C-alpha cells in the first residue's frame, strides 16, 4: 500500500463523515460546552507565538487565537486550558482527542490537511530561512555545500532543508533536535554551520545566542510556511467556529474595529460592521454561537493587528515587520473571507 492509498482511505473516511456530518456535527462544541473550557494545544515555549510569562500566563499570537475562540464560545477569554506540546507529539494529541484545537505555529500542507486535521486558515505567513555565523563568510544559501545544519525534528523545516539541498545538488548533514532551545544551544556551541527554521523563529531564537550580532540571516527563503490553527476532521461546525474566529479578527482590522472602539462601532451604520459585530443578521447562530461572538472576541482579545503588535510586532523583542502579514489592502496577503 502506498501513501496515496492511505491518504485516499483517510479522505474517503473524512468524506463519509462529511456526508453523515449531521449526526456528529456539534460533538466538539457540545463537549466543550460541557467541560466549560477549550483545550488548546500550543508550543512548549516559542516567544511571540506561545510562551508562558513570569506569572505562568500564556502569551503569544497562537495563544491569542485560543483565547479568541474561548471568547467566541463562552464570552470569556479565560475559558481555555493550554497543553504545551512538542512538534513531535502535536498531531497525535489532536487526533487522539487530547486537545480540541491545535494552535502551534503549524505549517499548512496537503498531507497534514488530509492526514491529521483541518486547517482553518493562516494566522502567520512565514518562510524558512538560514542563519549562519558572520565569520563563515557565506553570503548565500547556495554556498552551503557540505555544511552541517541544525534544525527541529518533526517539522516541515526538516523536510524542506532536505529538499532544498537535494534540489541544489549539495551535500549536508542534519542534526535534528526535539526542542528549539536545544537547537540554539548546539548551534551556539558550533555543532553546526547553519541554523534553519522559519524566519520568525530565527528572529525569536537569535536573542538567545551568546553573541547575537555575530550571526546573520541569509537572504534566501526556501519555502512557503503558512502557519495556522487546525481542528480534527469530521466536525464541520467546530471547524467553522475556528475558521470564523480567525476571520473575525482579520475582518475587524480591515473594518477598523479594535478593542478600544468596539462599543462605539456597535452603533455604526456601516452594514459590514453591523454584520461583523452581530448587530445585524444571524451569522453567529448559523455556527452555533451567539450573534455577537465577534464583538466578544474583539472586546476580549482585540483584532489581528492588536494581537500582532502585542506579540511579535516591531515594538516587541522579536521586532517583526508586518510584511506578508499585512492586510491585502496594505500590500500583504492577509485576506479573510467576508462575513455576510
Amino acid at each position, binding site marked *: *500500500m*502506498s*501513501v496515496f*492509498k*492511505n*491518504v485516499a*482511505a*483517510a479522505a474517503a*473516511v*473524512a468524506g463519509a*463523515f462529511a456526508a453523515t456530518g449531521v449526526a*456528529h456535527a456539534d460533538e466538539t462544541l457540545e463537549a466543550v460546552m460541557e467541560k466549560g473550557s477549550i483545550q488548546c494545544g500550543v508550543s512548549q515555549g516559542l516567544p511571540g507565538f506561545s510562551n508562558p510569562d513570569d506569572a505562568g500566563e500564556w502569551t503569544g499570537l497562537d495563544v491569542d487565537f485560543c483565547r479568541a475562540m474561548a471568547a467566541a464560545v463562552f464570552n470569556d477569554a479565560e475559558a481555555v486550558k493550554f497543553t504545551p506540546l512538542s*512538534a*513531535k*507529539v*502535536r*498531531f*497525535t494529541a489532536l*487526533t*487522539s*482527542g487530547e486537545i480540541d484545537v491545535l494552535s502551534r505555529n503549524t505549517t499548512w500542507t496537503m498531507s497534514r490537511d488530509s*492526514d*491529521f486535521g483541518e486547517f482553518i486558515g493562516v494566522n502567520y505567513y512565514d518562510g524558512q530561512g538560514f542563519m549562519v555565523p558572520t565569520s*563563515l563568510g557565506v553570503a548565500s544559501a547556495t*554556498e*552551503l*555545500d*557540505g*555544511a*552541517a545544519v541544525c534544525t527541529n*525534528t*518533526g517539522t516541515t523545516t*526538516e*523536510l524542506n*532543508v*532536505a*529538499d532544498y539541498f*537535494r534540489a541544489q545538488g549539495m*551535500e*549536508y*548533514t*542534519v*542534526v*535534528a*533536535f*526535539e526542542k528549539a532551545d*536545544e537547537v540554539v*544551544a*548546539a548551534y551556539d*556551541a*558550533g*555543532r553546526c*554551520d547553519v541554523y534553519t527554521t522559519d524566519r520568525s523563529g530565527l528572529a525569536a531564537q537569535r536573542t538567545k545566542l551568546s553573541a547575537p550580532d555575530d550571526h546573520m540571516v541569509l537572504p534566501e527563503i526556501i519555502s512557503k510556511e503558512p502557519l495556522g490553527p487546525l481542528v*480534527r*476532521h*469530521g466536525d464541520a461546525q467546530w471547524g467553522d467556529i475556528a475558521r470564523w474566529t480567525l476571520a473575525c479578527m482579520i475582518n475587524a482590522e480591515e473594518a477598523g474595529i479594535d478593542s478600544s472602539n468596539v462599543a462605539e462601532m456597535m452603533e455604526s451604520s456601516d452594514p459590514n460592521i453591523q454584520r461583523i459585530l452581530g448587530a445585524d443578521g444571524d451569522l453567529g447562530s448559523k455556527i452555533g454561537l451567539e450573534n455577537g461572538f465577534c464583538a466578544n472576541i474583539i472586546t476580549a482579545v482585540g483584532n489581528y493587528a492588536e494581537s500582532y503588535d502585542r506579540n511579535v510586532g516591531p515594538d516587541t523583542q522579536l521586532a517583526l515587520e508586518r510584511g506578508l502579514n499585512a492586510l491585502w489592502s496594505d500590500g500583504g496577503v492577509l485576506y479573510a473571507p467576508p462575513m455576510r
Partner: protein
Amino acid sequence: MTESAVTTLPAARPSFWRDPAKRALVWQALVVLVLAAFVWMVVKNTATNMEQRGLASGFGFLETSAGFGIITTPFIDYAETSNYFQVFLVGLVNTIIVAVVGCVLALALGFVIGIARLSRNWLIQKIATFYIELFRNVPLLLQILFWYGAVLKPLPGPRSLHEAGDSVFFSVNNRGVIFAEPITQPGFNLVWYALLAAVILIFVLRAWARARQVRTGLQFPVFWTGLGLLIGLPLIAFFATGMPLEFKPAEMSRFALRGGVTIIPEFVALLFALVIYTAAFIAEIVRAGIQAVSHGQTEAASALGIKPNHRMRLVIVPQAMRVIVPPLTSQFLNLTKNSSLATAIAYPDLFAVFAGTTLNQTGQAVEIMAMTLAVYLTLSLLTSGFMNWYNSRIKLVER
C-alpha cells in the same frame, strides 16, 4: 442420625467454595474474563476512535519515502529517498550499537569502580565513593545534557583545524571523531580467516592448559598467549598478503570534513552519560557482591598463601559473580531502555527517528508505538535470556 450412618459416610468432600482447587479455577476464569473484556474494550475503542477521526491504519506507511536526513546511519544504506522501514532499521541499529557498547563499557568501568570502592588506598576509595554517590543520585537526563555540553564545548571547530582541500587521516573536532575510511583490497579476507583461526586456537589452548594444570599443576599464561595470538596472527596475515588495506582520507570542504568515518559527538555524549550513570550502579552491585563473599574465604585463601591479586580473581570474584549477575541484568536492561533519552541530544536512536519523526509525519501512532515497544521488549528478552544462561552456568552446583 445414627452413629453408624456417620461412620459409613465417605470422606467428607468440601463444598464447592471450600475446595481450594475449584476456587482457584474460578478465580482464574474470572481474571481471564476481566482481562479479555478489558482488551476487547480497548481494541474496540481504539478502532472506533480511529475510524471516527479519520486516522489511517495498517503498515502500508512503511513503504513511503521518508524525505528527511539522518545524521548517522551505520551499516544501513540510507538516503532521503529511503522509506520509513529503513528509518526503522537505522533507529534499531543505532539503539543496538549504543546499548551494546554501553553495556560492555559500563560493566568494565563498574567493576573497576566497585573494586576501587573497597580499595585499601584511602584516596582511591574516597574517590570511588564520591563517584558512586554523585552519579547515582542525579537524574540521567541532566547528565546527558551535561555531557553533551562537556563534549561539545571544549572541542574546536573543523575550520580552525584544517584548511579547505586538506586530506585528513584523523581529526577530533566538534563535528565528531573523524578518521580515514579503511577500504579492504582483494586478499584481505585472509586476515579475517587468521582472526578466526586465532579464536579457535585460543579455545584449544585453553582446554589444553586446563588439562595440563589438572595433571601437573603447571600453569600456562593463557591470557597473554591468547592476546598475542589474537593480535599476532591477523597481523602476520596482513603483512604476508602485502597490506591489502587502503585508507581513504576525509577531505576538508569549506565547512567540514567530508568522507571518512565519523563518530558523532551525540553518540559520544550519550555513551558517556549512560556508561557513567550505569557504572555507578554496577559498582555498588559489585561491591555488595564482593562483600557478600564470606570473609573466611579471603582468610582461607591468604592462609593457603594465594597472592592478593590471585585471591581476588580466583577465589572472591567467581563467588561474588553469583550475587552480582542477577541485578546486573536489570542494569543492562535499564541502560538499553535509557538509551531512548537520546532524543534530548539529537542522537538518532529508534525512539527519536521512528517513534518520533516518523510518527509525527505519518500520524500512525498505534502501529509505530506497537513496533517500537516490540523492539524494546525483544531486546530485553534477549538480554535476560543471555544473562539467565550465563547465570545458570556460573551457579553454585549443589549436591
